[in-house]
């Protein structure tokens, strides 16, 4: 309860435990302040993070387990921010992964204090952001859309899209182009021609 009062809704709240963590000096895009909280960082009302350096984990493998346990279910998003700062990551990372999954925590790996800080900043800044940016919603203008659609076909690049656009005049024209027509486009090799043609002409799904 004491923690909740000290939480500034417009900043990342940082636990005193984190004092001296080099990550702090890289948090620049959002404000941050110390507060009396259970997790190490609190990014808004619904998200919190624990910080773990893998090097530290190798020294005290029990530490993170206890921290995760005391976190309980107070937050919707519970992040375990893991600074990958050892050479041989395989074993320690496997352990941390297992702890995270079994205790309902989302593991995020970062390779530098800057990167750790960027995650914290972004969690805070994106607190209320809709998911449009990751739902394949692209800009409305014609060419961006055409490019977005056509580059779903592996290997097809912007120049290819422009070439096809100029040759076939419309999106429908591109989709209905024959193998020979596609092959006649300069710069589009036989492999890409084949892939494009398959994409347009092979049925979406077929039940056997």
């Amino acid at each position, binding site marked *: 309860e004491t923690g909740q009062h000290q939480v500034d809704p417009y900043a990342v709240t940082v636990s005193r435990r984190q004092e001296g963590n080099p990550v702090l000096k890289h948090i620049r*895009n959002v404000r941050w302040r110390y507060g009396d909280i259970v997790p190490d960082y609190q990014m808004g009302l619904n998200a919190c993070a624990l910080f773990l350096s893998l090097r530290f984990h190798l020294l005290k493998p029990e530490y993170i387990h206890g921290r995760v346990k005391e976190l309980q279910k107070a937050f*919707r*998003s519970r*992040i375990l921010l893991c600074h990958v700062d050892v050479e041989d*990551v*395989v074993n320690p990372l*496997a352990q941390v992964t*297992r702890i*995270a*999954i079994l205790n309902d925590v*989302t*593991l995020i*790996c*970062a390779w*530098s204090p*800057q*990167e750790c800080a*960027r*995650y914290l*900043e972004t969690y805070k*800044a994106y607190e209320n*952001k809709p*998911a449009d*940016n*990751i739902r*394949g919603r*692209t800009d*409305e203008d*014609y060419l961006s*859309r055409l490019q*977005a659609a056509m580059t*779903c*076909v592996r290997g097809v690049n*912007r*120049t290819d*899209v422009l*070439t096809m656009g*100029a040759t076939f*005049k419309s*999106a*429908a*024209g591109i*989709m*209905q182009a024959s193998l*020979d027509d596609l*092959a*006649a486009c*300069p710069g589009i090799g*036989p492999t890409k021609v*084949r*892939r494009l043609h*398959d*994409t*347009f*002409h*092979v*049925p*979406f*799904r*077929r039940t056997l």
Partner: protein
Amino acid sequence: MGDEEKAEDMCADLLPFQRRIIQDMIEEDGLCIMAAGLGWQRILAVMLQLQIERRRNPKERGVVLLLGCTDWQRTMIKRELHRLDPALHRARKVAVAPDALPLPADANTPADGVLTASATYLDPGAGGLEPEMPVDVTNEIPAAGRIELYRGRACLFVTTRILVVDMLNSRVLPNQIAGMVIMNAHRVTETSGEGFAARLYRSSNRKGYLRAFSDQPTSFSHGFAKVEKVMRALYIKSVYLWPRFEAHVKDCLKASEEGLQLEVIELALQMTPAMTAIYDAIADIMDSCIKELRRSNKIDTTELSLDHGLFKSFDEHVRRQLEAVWHTVSPRTKQVVADLKTLRELAEYLLHFDAVTFLTYLETLRAGEGISSFWLFHDAAHLILDEAKRRVYEVMNSKKASEAAGSKRKAQEATSGFAIEPVLEELPKWRMVCKIVQELQSEGMLTEPNNGHVKDEPVDLTHGDLNAIDLPGLPPPSGATPSSKPPSAPVLIVAQEARTITQLRDCLAKGGPEGLLRRLYEEYVLRRAAGKGKGKGDLPRWGSSGRAGGRGRAARGSGSRSKASDAHGTGRPSAQEDEAMLQEAKQLLQPNGSDQHQMAAKAAKKGSQGGPSSRGRGRGRKASASRAESPERVQAATGPADREASEEEALTHFVRFYNLESKEEGVLWDVKPSYIIMYDPDMAFIRQIEVFKAEQPLRPLRVYHLHYEDSQESDKFTAAVSREVTIFQDLIRQKEFMVLPDPIQALDQAKKAGASLMHPDALAALPGVGQNAITRRAGGRLSNKPQPTCIVIDVREFMGSLPAVLHQQGLQVVPVTLEVGDYILSPDVCVERKSLSDLRQSFISGRLYNQAEAMSKYYKVPTLLIEFDGDKEFVLHGPSDITEDIKADSLISKLVLLTLHFPRLRVIWSRSLHSTADIFRSLKTNQEDPDALVAATTGIPVGPDGMPDTGAEAVVNQSAVDVLRRLPGVSDANYRGLMHAAPSLAQLAALSLTQLEAAMEGRQAAKKLHDWLHAPVPHLAA
């Protein structure tokens, strides 16, 4: 005994060294690496034929499977089989209809593939087998049909993924397989599909054979001890190397005493001055790219010189060097590496494309490359553009233009004071091809020998030897035709690209090169004018920033070359030029034949006068005097007869064309040419010609080998040959010192190792984890249960390596078609696997969002596995990717957004395939095994009968679905309906607005989609 005779019989057609290869392979399983073009397809066909013969005996069992073939390789083997035994063809034709035909790859559309496939498997083929052409086993044949095929057929082509899935599901048992033949062995690794299949096969079948082929020796030079790795993965003990310089091969391909020498006439052409200028400019820019790379200090540039710069391997070499540190490479360096590739391609296209196509491509490229492009802002880039333009047209002061064109009308109409004058530079090779064909024709080589046309000219050897094939009693395979009939197509023109072939055909046809260029030019002008007419003002948004930057830089560029005071000095069309272009288009649209005719005539004049000068250089193998002078004759012979339309019309009569892209290498045997014009040099095809010649020693054969002097083309050719030689020498040395464990022993050892890895206590030893597990076990509830070991895996995942690794580590893998997730570890844990590039791509397409949504809906622990490449650095991005501000398109931002929207989503960051396997196993401790059936039906909408609408295995065209979901108006709610209404994207594009409305259940969305699909693409270039 009988078998051996038959084998002898079938081998009769082969060259001695090819027979040796087969004998070696039959004696002891092995990996056969042969030089390109030595006829692997014939060797494989004979081996399959032997198997088909064997299975004729009802007592013989077992199927032979061919893995790792590409489409064209399959087609080629089928063609060969058909050539060996036309009866095969007939038998198949009765059993099944069209699929039996050795179709060219493009005719074999998947749509009819399914029909034929289902027709095929129905014939039982029990007992003594009728000889049949092998069928392709793919995911389009239902499981029951596949079981039937494995049981009943002698030979099958199998998709590796399908075979692995079928072996794991016991649809085919290892001891049902008499042998496996693996093509493209250079692609095999321990965890590749082929490696996995070999392991499954060998683990319980030690008798059947396993043979592997590769005709790409150069691929074995990448990486350390590649050959040994491949052999180990396939449990093969021997390797057979067949370079071109091997004694047997050499002997075979050398002309026999009584036979005729293969004549090779090398024709070195000169590029036109404009081409040379462009070529030099490209080299210039590449040079600065290399300097730029050198500045980055990340790369060892000692080996990077311009001489190598134009080879394909160059940018790959750079990439390979940078791969390990790719994340630390600055965006600028990355751009330079990308530019190097673009430039290398451009240099290639310069030689392959005609002037108009090259210009079109260049303009598209300029519109497409963003502001980040390095090369576009190089001074020389403008030179490239200017020169490319000058090869097509020139902007002239209309006065001058009218003088030049001799057309008053033009001067009157030109309002802007500028006019477009077509230049239309021909490719030097075009003219040369025409000349060669004309010469052959005028020599009477291409007319019927018996129509009284006896050559009085004592031409050269070839003439006298033509009679040699008329000798009676020659064996038919020599391809000799009775003298009463002319050879059907004595000239074969070989080029790399299909486009080149189409154009060459036009060159030889009526209009000649001028007509072709004229047509291309008109199309070009109209396209440009159409773009300008409409799109004035509203330039497309994308690239507009690049354009602005371009202009700024361009201005600077032109400043430095202030002498180029022309309006088009900047490489960007001026207003006048646009105006003039519109004018030209208007004129073209007027039905005015005389004008066109004039143009063509003018262009023709240019072509013959100031056009490309070609300098021939005879370098026949025998270098006889007559050979050396032959190019000169070529030139002389073409003078006056040149423009006689009737003759040109006939030019294509005895000419056949072949493009190397189509990969129908049997063409030599089908066409049986006497003259071959190699328009583009190609090592493998030259070898094919040698093999073809060696098979018919008495047949005369002349090869014209065309290449541009001082271009990368000829260098590339010689470099390819010498590279192959060096690599073979390396391989021979490696072979001497190769130490390989007995494959079977290795297999047993691996089995044991896998078993010990499986032991659960190994995990308990981990601190933290172990304690937890021990505490739980103290409860005693789980101790009696057998350790769960099974993972349900989506069949599509079997294209990758992870299932093989999981299996190797002793987990049971169950392949099933999954709607939700890729790996199901337990009833609760569902994993979606993404490699780094997949991750980026599926964030962009929105697919990951949909997948996370589906996983969260059906599973308690939805998990995203981010899989890093074990060979590369373990980082998400480099320090330079972390910018000052939070950027919406960075991977960090997207991951944050994803985890915020799916708070239950767990993330696994895996260093490598093997660590993924370890993590999977640790997650499975104390968890129940998943149920394959439940997993397979999860997320599938319930059908009308209340049962999940599984419909067996559905084949999904994923990229089509991705494209569909990104079209305007298409949403999560309506895309399924659309997929029902239109089976494919092509058909979707044909739907009417009303049909779309019905399918999408929404007017607005339907209209949006319909409008977008049919909206004209705005003009981009220039």
